[in-house]
């Protein structure tokens, strides 16, 4: 198991390295980013001070060096103008549009994004698991049709529309807050218990809105998988042992049907982040989605590069978690590398 873990982490590190090269190339590919525009303007003005400032910026951000060195400096493998100072050392770079360090911009948004994603995944699984299982066990009954109906509505309703509806009725009936991740009083305040509670209250509607589509898809998949498994001989064996049917289902076929369910964690995370950009805009959520959007539009390349790296890391960690869970759940995977 330890060997398996080390192997997986090793693969993950390599993947991350390849992704970082791709991200670097992609964010640097389109011409006309903020910094080179600035430098071009300074040079065009012809004033000595401006030219000197342009020269300074060139050196400061290592634009005078070859591309591969720029990449290594960005990651932190090569000494830049200030020694080793890249992603690995925790220096996330500078946002030219907002004129602040990237870390200061994404700081809180990062944690809010993580919290939002965590609760969304939790919501998806906690709702999809029982709903899918019941839909399969009671296939073609009213409860199956109800789960199917909820699923189709969830898949078919545009997220922003769902957001508006839920905000309206949430506020109307339950007094839920509308918009944002926290009340205005807590903005830029240090974390406290009151602030945490406030954030959780604000999370309810976004979690449902963002998670519903994924949840609906997962209910369908779990139902189909479990329905297949329910017909397998080992379920009959369990019943022949005298195991009550509920226990027999949970202990045997449900565990088998969980495999694709668990494997989905890795796929779920990136789709949540990128899929929630629009919703975050509509709902005024201070997550990294909207920041990424504006950074990409203005070609603010340190900012967009870092966010893309962060999303990749999130995906890879999700994959790692699902792989480890799979190996823990299924001995056939755990032992596949081992000589028998």
């Amino acid at each position, binding site marked *: 198991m330890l060997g398996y873990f080390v*192997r997986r982490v090793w693969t993950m590190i390599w993947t991350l390295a390849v992704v970082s090269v791709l991200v670097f190339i992609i964010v640097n590919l389109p011409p006309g980013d903020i910094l080179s525009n600035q430098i071009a303007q300074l040079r065009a003005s012809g004033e000595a001070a401006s030219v000197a400032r342009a020269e300074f910026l060139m050196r400061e951000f290592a634009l005078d060096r070859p591309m591969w060195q720029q990449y290594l400096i960005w990651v932190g493998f090569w000494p830049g103008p200030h020694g080793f100072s890249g992603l690995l050392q925790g220096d996330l770079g500078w946002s030219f549009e907002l004129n602040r360090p990237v870390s200061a911009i994404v700081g809180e948004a990062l944690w809010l994004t993580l919290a939002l994603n965590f609760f969304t995944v939790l919501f998806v699984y906690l709702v999809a698991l029982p709903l899918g299982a019941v839909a399969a066990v009671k296939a073609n009954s009213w409860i199956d049709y109800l789960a199917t109906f909820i699923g189709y509505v969830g898949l078919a309703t545009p997220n922003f529309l769902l957001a508006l509806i839920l905000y309206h009725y949430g506020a109307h009936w339950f007094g839920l807050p509308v918009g944002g991740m926290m009340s205005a009083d807590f903005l830029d305040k240090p974390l406290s218990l009151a602030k945490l509670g406030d954030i959780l209250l604000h999370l309810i509607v976004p979690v449902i809105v963002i998670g519903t589509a994924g949840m609906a898809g997962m209910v369908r998949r779990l139902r189909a998988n479990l329905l297949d498994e329910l*017909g*397998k*001989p*080992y379920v*009959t*064996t*369990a*019943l*022949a*042992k*005298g*195991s*009550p049917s509920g226990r027999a289902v949970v*202990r*045997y076929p449900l*565990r*088998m049907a969980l495999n694709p369910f668990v494997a989905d964690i890795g796929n779920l995370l990136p789709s949540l982040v990128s899929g929630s950009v629009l919703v975050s805009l509509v709902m005024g959520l201070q997550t990294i989605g909207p920041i990424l959007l504006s950074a990409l539009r203005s070609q603010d390349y340190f900012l967009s590069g870092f966010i893309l790296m962060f999303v990749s890391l999130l995906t890879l960690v999700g994959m790692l978690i699902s792989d480890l869970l799979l190996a823990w*759940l*299924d*001995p*056939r995977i755990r*032992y596949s*590398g081992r*000589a*028998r």
Partner: protein
Amino acid sequence: MTTSQQALLVDGLTVGFDAGAPPVIDGLGFSVARRETLAIVGESGSGKTLTGRALMGILPRGARLLGGRALYRPGDGGPEVDLLALRRSALRRLCGGRIAMVFQEPMSALSPLHTVGAQVAEVLALHTDLPAAAIHARCLATFAEVGFPDPERAWRAYPFELSGGLRQRAMIAMAVVAEPDILIADEPTTALDVTTQAQVLDLLKTLQRRHGQSLILITHDLGVVASMADRVVVLRQGRLMEAGPVADVLAAPGHAYTRALVAAAPHLPEGASAGRSAADPILQVEGLNKTFPARRAGFFGQRSGTAIAAVRDVSFTLHRGQTLAIVGESGSGKSTVARLLLRAEIADPGAQVVFRGRDGAAVDVAALGGAGLKAFRARVQLVFQDPFSALSPRMRIAEILSEPLAIHGRLNARARRDRAAELLRQVGLSAEHLGRYPHAFSGGQRQRIAIARALALDPELLICDEPTSALDASVQLQILDLFKRLRDELGLSYIFISHDLAVVADLADHVAVMRAGRIVEQGPVAALFHDPVHPYTRALIAASPEPDPGKRLDLAAVARGAGAPQDWPAPFGYRDDTAPPLTEIAPAHFVRLAA
């Protein structure tokens, strides 16, 4: 009412699927005494499996109990109950505890995600109040009793880590761990090799003797019935055809259907059938080897594990119009030989495979390529084991039969259709079947279609890989007859691969017995059956159940030869790769033994 000697009395059992359709089990009645083995015999579709399931309350979806009683009298003197009328919760307390079941396919009947220990222990957890430590101890004792060499290891093992025989032992352990009164075994050995089957049957018998259970043995194999059962019930299409003591029913079947079943069961030959002589070799094989490289694995993709020697030093000559049977258990390399002969796999360098067609020209199969290989494959065709998956479900019979002709560019569309109709007539079907799809046919009919497909290109040699293993005994007999007729009519030669000596006895001229990639004994069919020399051949013969209660399985002989090569007695045994050569002990009769 049951008498005190009876464990179970079934009366008027009726099970159906649809309300309108006739019931699949119709008014079935039988009884089982204590310590008795009752065999329920029938072909597929006879309702024998549903009978067992109805008693356990685990009928498949859609099947409904329409009537009947199943009175069960517990061995501990408890009150008599009707299993079919019990509430679910009450039936659950009996199932697995007092009445237990062993299923056919242990791989799929055991959960792949749980250890064998956890699955067996669950039975005790459900049916007893024993503490965990006592459950563990009792499971280990049961594992030892059913023949696990290392019970502690069995406790921790997952089903996929066990061999087929051990898996079925785990299944049996699960059934007997709570010491039931009645054990229902549904085709418990059908998925196993003959030698393993003999050992598992012996285990069931021993356990029954020791614990005094009643055993209900559901099977299609009259040979198994003869060596196991006290009484037998013959089912056909859900109705009872005949019932009585095994000796009476098998020796003097009263019902015509039972007579047909007994006649269809494979017998080992009694008298010496003279092998037909010929001296016109169609296929000469010399020094055939196949090594599968170890699979890539590990951190940097290095090869781990050892290479697998699937086929070692196989040589034989097949004469025109004759049949060579290659017999061995799963993993013996017999199917790999077939694939090598067809060039579906490439043999290790150095093998000599020479095919001599009707035109008299010798073809070196190993050196063939391109057009030569295509022409060769038209002359050598393959018949597969499973007629259900060998035919494309989306093609009509006419398309299936004319596709080989189209691939080889023979005949025009109209002539192809005529040829397809002719082929169907040759295999005993009629031309009106041409427009149907395979699902409209029974297993036996599909195998006929598969054979017709193989004959389409007018081949000279058919390689048949277990062509009757998936079929009922009576259908098997018909297919074997068809093979014989086609051989005589069309002058075909066969290589007939089987795990069952009794099946090939009638058809083959020569038999080669394979074990662990090597031929251990090879010779004319008469010599092999009447003067078997190698312990493994003897084990195969001893393990073949015959429908004759006078001939019970000879387990001592099975035990001597069924083990790995290093367990064979001298001069036959060998270790690793140091096998002794094949030695000619009588004309054309070869045995692998140290000189």
